[in-house]
């Protein structure tokens, strides 16, 4: 994948965000009056973002126009992106399911799924790990940290 194209799109998006921060007064609510004002620092940052993203965007655009050869850094290797997508899907499902199924029920499935994704096929050991690790974390959190991880709430 050509990173220059992404640079141009990203720069355009950041420039737009910066312009919105610089011109929109509705991004801040309430607060007391000070000499500096609540939006001074965010606007100062927006100016710098405008400059740096503009620099990156223009450099990449010029290189795109000149059709210069891609350097190693400018080529994004997309190998393995399918696995990354699956990993994020597992993680999102975990986030959605754990408040209902509970940490102890949801976690073994997640461990098994990620281990499978990474090429693990030693099911006995992975199975034991998927049971022991959640129990240890749950027990450690509740006993020592006084943090109570989500529990089953479907009944």
């Amino acid at each position, binding site marked *: 994948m050509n990173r220059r194209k992404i640079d141009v799109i990203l720069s355009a998006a950041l420039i737009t965000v910066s312009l919105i921060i610089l011109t929109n007064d509705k991004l801040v609510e309430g607060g007391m009056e000070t000499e500096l004002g609540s939006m001074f620092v965010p606007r100062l940052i927006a100016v710098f973002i405008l400059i740096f993203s503009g620099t990156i965007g223009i450099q990449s655009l010029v290189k795109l126009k000149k059709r210069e050869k891609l350097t190693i850094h400018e080529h994004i290797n997309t190998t393995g992106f399918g696995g990354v997508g699956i990993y994020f899907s597992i993680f999102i499902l975990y986030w959605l399911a754990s408040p209902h199924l509970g940490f102890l029920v949801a976690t073994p499935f997640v461990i098994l799924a990620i281990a499978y994704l990474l090429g693990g096929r030693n099911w006995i050991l992975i199975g034991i790990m998927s049971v022991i690790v959640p129990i240890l974390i749950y027990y450690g959190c509740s006993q020592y*940290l006084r943090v109570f991880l989500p529990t089953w709430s479907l009944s």
Partner: protein
Amino acid sequence: MIENILQGFATIFSVGPIVGIIIGVIVGIIFGAIPGISAIMAIAIMLPLTFYVEPVVGITMLLAVYKAGIYGGSISAILINTPGAAAAFLTAQDGHALTRMGKSGKALCMALYASVTGEMLSTLVLIFVAAPISLISLKAGPIERVYLLFFAFTVIGSVTGESISRGLLSTCLGMLFATVGMSSITGATRFTFGIPELMSGFTFTPMLIGVLVMPEVIIAIRQRNSAQGNLKLTVSPNPEDNRISWREYRSVLGTIIKSSGIGTFIGSLPGLGSTTAAFLAYGEARRTAKNPEKFGNGSIRGIAAAESANNAVCGAAMIPMLTLSIPGDDVTALLFGAFLIQGITPGPTIFFEHTQVIYGIFAGFLLTDFFLLFFARIGFKFWTKIASVPRYYIFPCVTIFAFAGSFTTNQNINDVLLLILFTMFGFGMRLVGLNPAAYLIGFILTPMLEQNMDQAVAIVGDNYSMYFTTPFAWIFTGLAALSVYSTIRQRKRAKVKRNDSACLEQGEAVADKV
């Protein structure tokens, strides 16, 4: 000061801190030794555990992970030529050459002794230098601190990024994210878009784990089809090949001291880090060596130089953080966050407000070196075995720890969503060449900048000349400009060098054809 140091040792010699250090050393060696997992990942995962313990226990445990993790990186570098971090690249060259000769024990011993000596020397510098510097920096008022912070942003942004503009953009993005939520000065809510969860800003721990740790899991998933190197310790029948004799250690002691000095100096400058230190020290050791041709082919002096410089950065990196409130790299940014979570703001006042804690931490630093020496030396075989655990056992556990760590901060499931979003963000940042360390430092330092800027504006009023009358203004502006200029020059030189070598290769190819 001596009294404070003794008090520090009295604080550290109790069950809690010692158990913390032992856990930290063990976790650090394991995580550092596993290829693909860095010390920073271990620190970030351990961070939520420290919320509920005393600051001395929590911080010393994290520092032990840091120190042991840096050493642990040399195990995989020496045994399978896979440096866990760029800083261990040179150790891999000489160390793996020794492994191929059947002398892996010698290489591991040299790396350990050099690491511990380097760390100890830089810790002593930290102890004796930090407090006097903090006395000077205490004289800086809000105006001077604003200049100092701008200097820090410029240096870190320009040095750490793939290019200056990308590094500085990373810092600016971190700064912008830090402004989300309620302003601590005016009480106004910014960029919350009516979402009440955003009122308190982005929770630090899930953001930290998402930006720094989880992208490493993603990288492992992307490379899941590539073979994992198998760590194996070969024991030579000749006992001399499995250890470093006192004579050998003494012969490289000069190199170790010089390299530790280089590492300490480089570590005390924000943004440069252990890789620069290791390369500089290695270059200097080779330049002054009687037999420079041995470097890269199994030289114990090479290992000593790279490892002592690399590890000396650990202690020295704390100097700018504790004296000027500037974290110089990603690890110190993380430790800065750990201090803040414990209710301690790193900076010059720390030596007066939290004397017992800070000297306890210093004593813990020294004690960590002894534990590292002990645990690493007795268990080379054991660490090698543990570090060979396949990644399909490690990364599912890392994911679960990240989930639990994010949840424990506020006992809020929304923080897990934040973790997922920041994982995507951190992964995206790496893809487009933005730097997570610069981002984090921008995020951490912005509230301080805003506070000092507000105070500076109130002090100056209409007398704008006050901004330029302080010598700090000129010194820090000059230093910031110098750092940007030197980085530009350095990168131009590197580019010219690359082009020259490409031309040379092309020329040779043409000559071959003719």
